[in-house]
């Protein structure tokens, strides 16, 4: 138990519950120390990888299952022949009729060139009596009538008339023709001139792996993109970058070239070392208050000493971080290769460079907030920014054509600074940050 002392009591009572309001800077420092900004954020990298994977899977996600039949066909065994496929637009309503007496309501047809097996392994039905088509009135059909006219010998025309008291056109016409397979016509059976359908070669029938009529038309396109990114500095932590750009794409076959102009604004941490000094107690000396000489022993002197604190100007420093903003004009130039183009979707890998010119910078000044200290100077820790930069850029663009002219694009991008982002400063290693982000935009296909 402590011995009771009035001095102790005085201070104990005064100091009990004595509160002092901490400065704002203290809470900020505590927050920073407890939640230090990480210079490496795995989630950003993982997000970029996931976006790449999702973009790669999008074509298979969006394309309906029945479109899988459009994949590269395999050449069947046997003799391949060129011919024409004549199909009704309503095939489910057409029925084979060996007795030529079936009443069929359909009357519209489509004819297109195809290749087919001369001797199919499993021919459907009787090749000598394959049904071709039906029509209510041959004179009304621009496609079937010339066939009939040019190949009368090969056709059997029969008219099965159903009683219709109102109109003669309710009567049904049924045409038959010999073919090797249902719906296929040997080109020797009729004249292609009369059919006036484009000729298709065997090679072209099989060579396109992933045909897409939409994309085949889009050779020049212009678009605008929004580009949020994360810049990974070293040693500074990551920071945000937002950009927008207008670009033009020129496409030749599967290859394309892209360029344009953009604007980007990025953040960076500006670290400053604030040097200041305060009057601190650095020790004490012993002051002689009094002394006494023992009369019985003159050689013995007893001193009464007191400690006196010694104050001196002691230098200190703190590190203050500010968020700086830099604005750039960007000029990208990239080359792409579309390795997947199917239905309405496309997947294009691209790589190139981006040239950036610094057009504006905002670097807030440091506020010296310590009132009872003397400011010595403020040293900038992060070097100044370079006015120009070169970056390597690469991306994987997923495109979705939602109309014949407009397409949406989502492209995870990676950028690596080729030239240092900071100016040279003694003792400071040149830094070349990298960037991960997403380029999202819309494109008009001329």
């Amino acid at each position: 138990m402590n011995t009771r002392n009035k001095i102790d009591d005085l201070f104990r009572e005064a100091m009990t519950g004595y509160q002092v309001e901490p400065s704002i800077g203290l809470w900020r420092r505590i927050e920073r120390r407890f939640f230090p900004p990480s210079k490496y954020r795995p989630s950003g990298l993982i997000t970029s990888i996931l976006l790449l994977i999702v973009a790669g899977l999008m074509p298979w996600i969006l394309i309906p299952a029945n479109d899988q039949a459009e994949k590269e066909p395999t050449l069947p065994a046997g003799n391949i022949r060129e011919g024409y496929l004549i199909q009704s637009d309503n095939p489910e309503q057409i029925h084979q009729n060996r007795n030529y007496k079936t009443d069929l309501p359909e009357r519209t047809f489509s004819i297109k060139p195809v290749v087919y097996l001369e001797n199919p392994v499993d021919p459907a039905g009787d090749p000598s009596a394959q049904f071709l088509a039906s029509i209510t009135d041959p004179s009304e059909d621009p496609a079937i009538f010339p066939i009939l006219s040019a190949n009368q010998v090969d056709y059997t025309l029969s008219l099965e008339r159903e009683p219709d008291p109102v109109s003669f056109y309710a009567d049904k016409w049924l045409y038959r023709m010999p073919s090797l397979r249902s719906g296929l016509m040997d080109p020797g059976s009729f004249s292609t001139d009369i059919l006036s359908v484009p000729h298709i070669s065997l090679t072209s029938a099989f060579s396109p792996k992933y045909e897409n009529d939409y994309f085949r038309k889009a050779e020049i396109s212009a678009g605008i993109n929004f580009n949020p990114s994360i810049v990974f500095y070293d040693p500074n932590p990551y920071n945000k970058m937002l950009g927008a750009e207008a670009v033009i794409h020129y496409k030749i076959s599967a290859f394309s070239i892209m360029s344009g102009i953009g604007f980007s604004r990025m953040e960076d941490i500006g670290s400053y070392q604030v040097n200041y000094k305060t009057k601190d107690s650095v020790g004490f000396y012993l002051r002689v208050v009094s002394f006494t000489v023992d009369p019985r022993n003159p050689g013995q002197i007893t001193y009464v000493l007191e400690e006196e604190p010694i104050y001196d100007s002691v230098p200190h420093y703190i590190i203050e971080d500010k968020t700086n903003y830099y604005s750039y004009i960007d000029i990208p130039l990239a080359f792409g290769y579309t390795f997947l183009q199917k239905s309405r979707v496309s997947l294009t890998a691209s790589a190139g460079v981006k040239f950036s010119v610094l057009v504006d910078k905002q670097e807030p000044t440091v506020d010296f907030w310590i009132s009872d200290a003397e400011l010595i100077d403020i040293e900038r820790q992060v070097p100044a920014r370079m006015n120009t930069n070169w970056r390597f850029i690469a991306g994987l663009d997923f495109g979705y054509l939602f109309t014949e002219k407009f397409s949406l694009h989502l492209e995870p991008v990676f950028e690596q600074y080729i030239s240092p982002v900071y100016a040279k400063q003694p003792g400071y290693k040149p830094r070349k940050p990298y960037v991960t982000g997403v380029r999202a935009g819309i494109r008009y296909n001329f």
Partner: protein
Amino acid sequence: MLGVCMRYCKNRIDAEDVMQDGFIKVFTQIHKFRREGSLEGWIKRIMINAAIDNYQSNLKYSFHEDVSEIVQSAVMDDHPDEDDDLADELNISREKLMEMIQELPDGYRMVFNLYAIESYNHKDIASLLGISENTSKTQLLKARKALRKKIEALLQHNHVNRVTTI
């Protein structure tokens, strides 16, 4: 808690450093809080420990220990009645008292705080600060003497008619 830290430091800047370190410990060690006492008391102990760590890490001068000085100081401090008279008529602000504590040399300040305000005994103080019990006692007496001197100087400055002898 900044008030606690300021008592153990020579100025506000150091106190904020200590409080910063203390809060980091609070955040990282909060799972060790057993609810055997109040949270406030637990945090206060952490702040005191942070102050002790800070003191020991910045220790420039070791305690000056001299037996003759201990005896001398003990003799000089042996006037509790004077303390009674002095304290009874005082009307000094808390801020001024805080300044007096902060102006004490580091060793005095640490021991005085731990003994007089936190009610630690000399054995515990010696263990905490890594000093002997005698040194702790010496520092306490010197601290009291220094504080008494400061109070008297303040009273004289305020033209209080009082004659004291230390």
